[in-house]
């Protein structure tokens, strides 16, 4: 077998299906990388070597016996450490829970096991998924997430390890979660494909709650096509998560036979960092070969504040016990030990008002997006920042993220793919945000973009060893 690192899930799956490579061989390669390179990027909480090797052997036996489960069979992956697993601790990124174990697996973990995927590692994350108010990257029991493209810069958060592990070739794919920016952010910073599914598309049962009405779980991988394959395995209604939708999802990798039609929200790049904006403008220009693109206007509403009000209100309740009994004092970042108290300043009437405005925004956006395949925008308004600096964040009210606010508020799907690099050599990304349940369309659009560019074929130096 050649080197499986940086091969897509689809390619690896085909090698496994045709017997050209054994799952044990692939899993061993990535376990070795997780152990050797994981610490360099602070990407890993737990490497699950023993369990993974058993699962890889079981996959090999099944495939040999003619029971091939599909493209994820025998493929290793990593899961953000907020997903409950029976066989390894689940820390939520917090020292407080370094040894905490659950006696069940999150639905996503179970579904991936049913699809034959092999859980190789629990991956690092910002403590409590970043909702406590962190301002700088050192806010996790594993230390700051390190960017494989520049080890003096941040991998992004809160799915830090999921982003860096995929970018550095430590796993072929990972599972992340997003409340606001936690899949698209690390995908942007690390130069990979990251899909935030429609709210309710993927069960959160067994996942840490930051915000009941904003949390989503999604795949992070090397290509939009891989994200589609993974979403196919993890999507679906779940009685254990009443928010899940009965709307079926089946991934369709067929390229679009027609031109796309995209919208760009007027002012979406206002306040965006200069290189990020230039790369986005170049990406839009490239997309004009396969799409009609027009600027659209949306209502002037305080989108970021509405989303923030809901987030603050829900997290104050989700973590009420830890705030009230003072256990937040054990968190890594100083600001995470203090800021949660301030969230109690959100009154019930403020929270309900934000939910009323959410109705308005959801209906307005659906109307505005009618006739469009997706809205385009920079995935993040700023690229990866140095590890020792505060980063801009719309969640803290320091920095703009219009599409992130709208997309998460309205529960809309979005995918980030790389669209260039900064002068510091770190990636920037473009997002395709679709109407609710239109994952197949945004996956096709992102795939079409990648036929026009080669940003996604580049990998960080020092990761090939």
């Amino acid at each position: 077998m050649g080197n499986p690192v940086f091969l897509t899930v689809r390619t690896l799956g085909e090698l496994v299906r045709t017997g050209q490579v054994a799952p044990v061989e692939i899993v061993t390669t990535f376990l070795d990388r997780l152990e050797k390179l994981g610490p360099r990027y602070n990407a890993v909480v737990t490497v699950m070597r023993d369990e993974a090797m058993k699962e890889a052997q079981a996959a090999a036996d099944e495939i040999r016996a003619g029971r091939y489960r599909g493209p994820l069979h025998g493929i290793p992956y990593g899961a953000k450490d907020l997903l409950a697993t029976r066989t390894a601790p689940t820390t939520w990124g917090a020292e407080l829970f370094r040894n905490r174990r659950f006696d069940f697996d999150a639905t996503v973990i179970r579904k991936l096991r049913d699809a034959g995927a092999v859980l190789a590692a629990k991956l690092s994350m910002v403590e409590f998924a970043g909702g406590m108010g962190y301002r700088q990257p050192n806010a996790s029991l594993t230390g700051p997430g390190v960017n494989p493209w520049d080890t003096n810069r941040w991998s992004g958060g809160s799915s830090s390890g999921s982003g860096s592990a995929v970018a550095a070739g430590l796993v072929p794919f990972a599972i992340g979660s997003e409340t606001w920016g936690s899949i698209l952010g690390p995908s942007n910073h690390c130069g990979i494909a990251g899909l935030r599914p429609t709210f309710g598309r993927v069960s959160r049962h067994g996942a840490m709650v930051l915000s009941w009405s904003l949390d989503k779980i999604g795949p992070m991988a090397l290509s939009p096509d891989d994200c589609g394959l993974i979403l196919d395995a993890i999507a679906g209604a779940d009685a254990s998560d009443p928010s899940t939708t009965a709307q079926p999802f089946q991934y369709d990798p067929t390229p679009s036979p027609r031109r796309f039609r995209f919208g760009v929200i007027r002012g979406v790049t206002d306040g965006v960092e200069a290189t990020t904006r230039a790369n986005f403008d170049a990406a839009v220009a490239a997309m004009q070969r396969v799409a009609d693109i027009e600027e659209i206007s949306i209502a002037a509403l305080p989108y970021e504040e509405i989303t923030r009000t809901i987030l603050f209100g829900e997290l104050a309740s989700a973590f009420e016990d830890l705030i009230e009994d003072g256990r937040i004092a054990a968190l890594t970042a100083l600001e995470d030990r203090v800021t949660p108290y301030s969230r109690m300043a959100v009154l019930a009437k403020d929270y309900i008002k934000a939910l009323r405005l959410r109705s308005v925004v959801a209906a307005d956006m659906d109307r505005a997006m009618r006739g469009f395949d997706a809205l385009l925008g920079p995935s993040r308004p700023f690229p990866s920042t140095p590890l020792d600096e505060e980063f801009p964040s719309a969640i803290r009210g320091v920095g703009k993220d219009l599409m992130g606010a709208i997309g998460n508020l309205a529960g809309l799907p979005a995918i980030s793919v790389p669209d260039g690099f900064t002068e510091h050599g770190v990636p920037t990304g473009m997002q395709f945000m679709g109407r609710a349940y239109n994952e197949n369309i945004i996956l096709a659009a992102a795939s079409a973009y990648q036929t026009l560019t080669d940003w996604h074929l580049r990998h960080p130096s020092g990761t090939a060893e």
Partner: protein
Amino acid sequence: MADEKGYDEAGLTYAALMQHYGGRLSPEMAEMLRGAVDAVLKTVSPVRDVPLANGDAPLLGFAPVRTEE
């Protein structure tokens, strides 16, 4: 800072939080909390300012529960 009627929501909120949790906080943390309270109130202020009609209902996911006996 108080509004034109003398109502200082940030100051009152901060005072209430300090009364409840202040014993846990160093002076540096207390100062950080004051800034965080200001930030939260800056967040909710524009939300409060958006006019809505009485019938503009919140987007809630609630559904009645009926389990099989």
